[in-house]
């Protein structure tokens, strides 16, 4: 079974790093912007079900380039990524969520707050987080650098996609 997942979020929140960590178990501190789309393939299993994840790592959303909404077509799940050390990226992620739902309808998704290894620079307070969770959004805090919660995030989304 194949499932397409799109990674969405502001630029430099760690979308590519999360995919690299999940697919190749590697991490680089150096930021390299993604132009266009990077597609990765990763096989996982939920119970006895083998799933081939086609992960679309879309370029980041900012004033220079907008997400090509047509690329979202055929997505079974979405991962919205925000950088916990830049509060504005959370707003971008939530905005992209609105746009994506208008484009392809509601699909399973997870909101990821990445860079949890940089807690001393954290800008998203507990109250903001609680407000989001109260809206029924699943929020996972990850670190592509340490690998914390990365695999769990993809597994969780895969399960949600299968459950749908």
């Amino acid at each position, binding site marked *: 079974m*194949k499932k*397409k997942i799109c990674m969405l979020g502001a*630029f*430099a929140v760690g979308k590519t790093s999360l995919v690299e960590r999940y697919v190749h178990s590697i991490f680089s501190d150096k*930021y*390299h*912007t993604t*132009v*266009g*789309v*990077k*597609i*990765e*393939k990763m096989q996982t299993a939920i119970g006895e079900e083998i799933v081939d994840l*086609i992960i*679309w790592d879309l*370029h*980041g959303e*900012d*004033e*220079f*380039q907008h997400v*090509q909404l*047509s*690329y979202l*077509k*055929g*997505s*079974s799940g979405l991962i919205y990524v925000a950088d916990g*050390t*830049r509060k504005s990226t959370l707003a971008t992620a939530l905005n992209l969520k609105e746009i994506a739902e208008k484009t392809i309808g509601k699909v399973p998704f997870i909101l990821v707050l990445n860079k949890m290894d940089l807690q001393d*620079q954290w800008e998203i307070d507990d109250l903001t987080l609680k407000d989001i969770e109260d809206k029924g959004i699943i929020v996972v805090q990850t670190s592509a650098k340490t690998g914390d919660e990365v695999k769990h995030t993809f597994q969780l989304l895969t399960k949600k996609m299968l459950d749908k």
Partner: protein
Amino acid sequence: MTGLTTKFLEKLCFNVFKESCLVYFVINKLGKITQWGGNLSDLNISEPGEDDPITDTAIFMEGILPLKGESMEFSCIKMPNNSCVDALLFKIEIGYGLIIWDATKKDHYLTETQQKCNELSLLIEKQKNRLVHFPDKRSEMENETILEDLFQALNFAVLEMDNNGHFVLIGTPPKWIEQIPQSNQILLGHSYEEDVFTFLGNFIQTAKDLWSKNHQGSYKSGVWIEKDQTDQEFLFEATAVDIQGRKLLIISHDRCQPNEKQSIIQKGRDLALNYHKLKRSDQKLKSMHDELELRVKERTKDIEEANRKLANELKERKKVEKEREEVSQQLRQSQKMEAIGTLAGGIAHDFNNILSAIIGFSELSIYEIKEDSTLKPKLEKILHASGRAKDLVQQILTFSRQTELEKRPLKLKLIVLEVLNLLRASLPAFIDIKKDLKSNGYILADQTQIHQVIMNLCTNAWHAMKENGGTLKVGLKEIDIKNESISAKNKLAIGQYLELTIKDTGCGMPPEIIERIFDPYFTTKETDKGTGLGLSVVHGIISNCNGSITVDSQIGKGSLFKIYLPSFITSNRSKPNKEKTISLGNNEKILFVDDEPFQTEMAEQQLSQMGYRVIISNDSAHALNIFLDNKDDFDLIITDMIMPKMTGKTLSQKIHKIKPDIPIILCSGYSDDIDSDTIKKMGIAQYLMKPVGMNDLSRAVKDALQKKK
């Protein structure tokens, strides 16, 4: 189309695809590959099997089919095999066509740039020719045309700001204008609102601001990426420039190359990230600054506290140092007084010996001459003067505190007179001394201390009148304190008192000084002029005598000290008057020892006159031998105290050892030579202070001989 033609076209297409790094796929409506062509290996794409789903070969096609629109473009798709491709998906009759090509080899994008260069070269050539053929026909119109040609050649869009602040396109618009939104309005020559080039909104405002300030030179917007009507991305850059008063916006345009785009976006984002970091650093810096400020305040608080403690400590230390200096000064004063006392004692000893000779020989002379001799009154004057000299020596000894402290009945009036006599010699003529001494009463006190009290108060009075002169009034009277309130006020028991008043007409003292004058070390005098101990000592002496001292003072009018001392009323008062008759001897034998020959010579004559036999010696050791040889012949020994070889004390002890019951009279010119306890313990019969007159000597000899009997 014939089969040959079809085959030819297929071959041609194959070659074209192969050389162009293009691959194509024909996909049926089920998403399976029916045909494919091109060089897949160049794009790292594995060859598909028959009826394989397109998603196995082109993974990005997952979920894309069925296609809603007529076509779909894919740009910069990085495949899992690391190839980067662009793709075009479009509908065909049997299903879909998919063309994939290498996105890293977009060489044709350079063509447009090359075209621009060529056009520019042509324009320059054209301008050169014009200048050669029509050198005098250079006009604004021509310049305008050249400028517009230049803009056209450079593929620039040039907007000029009109009087209303709107921008109008000048010259021939570049072709790319057609691609941007609102191109119709621009091409129709309407004046344009600033939002035609939406991405230039802020830049236009900034340019207007600069122009309004007569800013010279150009101002660039930086590179921006915009999409045209076909979603194709372009690069824009605008330059605001004032050319001869014309406000121009020159907008350059280029198609976006992936590498360039990558670089621009990367730079832009790096800038944004740096800005974010900078902002965070600023916040952190501010936070650290605030924390630092807080710490500095805390630290300053500690330092302030430490400084305060230090200041207090320094103050305390200065106080202690001052006290130490005062004590040291007092010690120096004491040592000085002690030295003076020692000196005075030494002088007194020698001077008393001299006086002894003067008095002794004068008395002998008076006895030897006839009653009506003209020498007698002269000798009596010598005796009187010697008596005053003797008193003076006693006063010096008293003043230098070389006398023992001993409370005994004192006639206060005499001490007052003694002090005033001393002072009169010292005080300048402009200090008038008046005395009103009505009492002959006695007090029980140490003479030296009372002397010190009066001297001290009188000296202070003098100092108070030093500037302008004045009168020192000293009064003495008896008062009976019966009133309990007066008693309590002066802290005195009810009873009889002598009231000694010392009044001056000097500068007076303010109340705050009066409050403190009896405090130890308090002084208003200059450094080294007073120790601040005088009045406190006075207060101590008076209190020790169960008396009281009060002070009343007014600025500019003077001060009045009143001293109350309890009257001493007893029947056993010491009577100063003594018998003046000479007691005569009965041929008793006396050994007289003194190292001064004139003393022994005078004593020999005096004692012989009195009816005694006298053996004299100027050497104490020799005198002892004389005694040893004739120990039973002597009735009395008279010896000086201070002598070389052997003191009078040692000689007395040795004689008493041989003959304990023989009376010994010790003579000394200095009271500190021996104390009364020692005299008693040694069994000395009499102790005489030099100078010794004949009366005193005869009485002492008589008394000593009577004790023996």
